[in-house]
């Protein structure tokens, strides 16, 4: 404020010797043209609004500036203004200056004292650096800038940190000294704006470092298979818990909303070997399935055959001799009907082969039955 008042004063003085100022009738205004109206500088700017708008010619701005420059060049003789011819339109130049300055101050005050706080925000207010309160959402007013300063903090926006940064694996050691490539993300927000602003030097970095440390600590207490499979939700919960404890210890004002494991896989270099294990599991299941199928087939075949035999046998028991004969003749009939037959009368006669044009295939079996030999 001191600065601004100083400036006001200074500009007022610069133009105080203007012969036709709007405050010409003012009490302490000096005589026109004499150039020693410095007293008016103190009173003049108090009432800049009283100028009628009509009294402001458009050309005033440049001419006031010109005058200022001219005076500055003139070596600053206090009475130098006397010899200068009065410029038409100059009367309101000083007023313009004052209006300009006043509007800058007004703008300054408006911009630095009115704070629209959005619903997701809180405003941490300090007076000369000292904490003076927290602004809730709404349209809030504080003293202007050099006195009060407001830091707006978005407390609802949930920030996400991804690990690793895109590209490259994030290797960590498990309890059984295996190496795991684990990608995860942490969601956090601010639950205490004052702590967030005043307690931690680099919040994002703190969250990241805490997350990495907590994650490695938890994974180091698990073996690889757990970490890749069933243990994942447990890891997430434990990391969140540990992070929150650490961040509370720092009084960071940060709330960890959640930890999510995006992928937990073996490192690239050994991935094939891991896939082979999965393949082996599938193979083993496939082999068992095949065996089971074959077994079912075998048993069903046995059952079918046994059932067939049982049925025939139950009939056979009723009339053994006849049934036996019938089956014999039927079979022989079927067999012999389809084959080439040669009946050799006398024992000891060797058949000459090929015996007949009836032979169709050169390499057919020859069955010598009964006494053919």
């Amino acid at each position: 404020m001191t600065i601004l008042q100083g400036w006001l004063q200074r500009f007022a003085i610069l133009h105080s010797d203007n012969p036709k100022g709007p405050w010409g009738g003012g009490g302490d205004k000096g005589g026109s043209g004499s150039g020693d109206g410095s007293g008016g500088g103190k009173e003049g700017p108090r009432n800049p609004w009283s100028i009628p708008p009509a009294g402001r010619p458009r050309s005033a701005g440049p001419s006031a500036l010109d005058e200022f420059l001219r005076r500055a060049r003139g070596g600053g003789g206090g009475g130098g203004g006397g010899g200068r011819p009065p410029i038409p339109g100059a009367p309101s130049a000083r007023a313009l200056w004052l209006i300009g300055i006043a509007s800058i101050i007004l703008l300054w005050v408006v911009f630095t004292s009115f704070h629209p706080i959005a619903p997701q925000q809180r405003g941490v207010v300090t007076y000369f650096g000292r904490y003076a309160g927290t602004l809730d959402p709404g349209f809030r007013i504080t003293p202007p800038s050099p006195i009060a300063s407001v830091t707006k903090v978005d407390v609802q926006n949930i920030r996400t940190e991804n690990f690793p940064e895109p590209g490259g694996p994030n290797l960590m050691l498990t309890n059984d000294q295996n190496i795991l490539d684990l990608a995860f993300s942490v969601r956090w927000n601010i639950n205490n704006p004052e702590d967030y602003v005043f307690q931690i030097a680099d919040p994002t970095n703190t969250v990241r470092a805490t997350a990495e440390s907590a994650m490695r600590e938890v994974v180091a207490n698990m073996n690889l298979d757990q970490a890749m499979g069933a243990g994942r939700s447990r890891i997430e919960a434990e990391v969140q818990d540990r992070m929150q404890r650490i961040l509370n210890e720092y009084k960071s004002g940060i709330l960890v909303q959640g930890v999510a494991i995006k992928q937990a896989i073996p490192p690239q270099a050994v991935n094939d070997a891991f896939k082979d294990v999965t393949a082996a599991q599938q193979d083993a299941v496939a082999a068992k399935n095949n065996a089971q199928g074959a077994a079912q087939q075998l048993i069903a075949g046995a059952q079918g055959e046994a059932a067939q035999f049982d049925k025939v046998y139950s009939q056979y028991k009723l009339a053994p001799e006849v049934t036996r004969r019938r089956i014999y003749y039927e079979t022989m009939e079927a067999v012999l009907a389809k084959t080439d037959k040669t009946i050799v009368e006398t024992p000891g006669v060797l058949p000459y082969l090929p015996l007949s044009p009836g032979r169709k295939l050169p390499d057919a079996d020859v069955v010598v039955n009964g006494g053919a030999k």
Partner: protein
Amino acid sequence: MNGSFFRNPITIGIISLLVLILLASTFVIVPETKQAVILRFEQPVGQPINAYKPNEQFGHTGAGLIARVPFIDRVVWVDKRVLDAEYENQQVLSSDQLPLIVDAYARFRVVDPLRMVVTARSETGVTEALVQLLGTSIRNELGNQPFKTLLTPERDKVMENIQTRLQKLATQYGVEIVDVRIKHADLPEGSPLESALNRMKTQRKQQALTIRAEGKKEAQIIQADAEAQAASIYATSFNQDPDFYDFYRSMQSYRRTFGVDSANPTAGSTSIILSPDNAYLKQFQGKR
């Protein structure tokens, strides 16, 4: 001329500028996040302003507007917040001579700004010093621990020990160590990592082989069980009359062998040379 000297706009401008400079160098805003030590001719004057006290309420701290003797007093700012000293990518040997790449950090707070300013001059100085000390503490602690310790709940204890060691060394700088954490403790690139990966690979290969062999074994057992069951079914059934089974089965077999069974066609044709003595041909002889 003397009277108008002070009315000269330029003179007035210069004077007000000087006043401004004087004001600006007299009054200083101490924010909540900073502690200030005032040095007069490089000697600390009075107590530090807005010095850290545990469990302070914001708004009731030493923060605010202060005045100093302009141009003579110099303000040294010391952060009041929790700060960070990172110890990155350093190789450390564990007690079992395993090289490890360690990333660690210490979170600290300057609790005695006066001492800090006297011993380390600035925040950067104290951070650098702490990184060195952190390195020493980590080396000493991990050098006493086998690598395996880091992969157990003991890890917490190791970090605590490092913190204790570091706190002892850091007290001289007026610093309180809030926390020490190991971010990474990994095997270095090259042969240690390679061999670990190789071990993982062979472990998995062995696992895959075992699983396949196990699958095969189970398949064989299933097969054998089924065969045994089938044999028992056959035996139960056929044992009712072994003689009839022999006859019945041979009849089935003839049908099959000589290609009569249309469901199981056989290759080739058959020529049969029969003797008239054959049982089938016994009626040829016209005997009764």
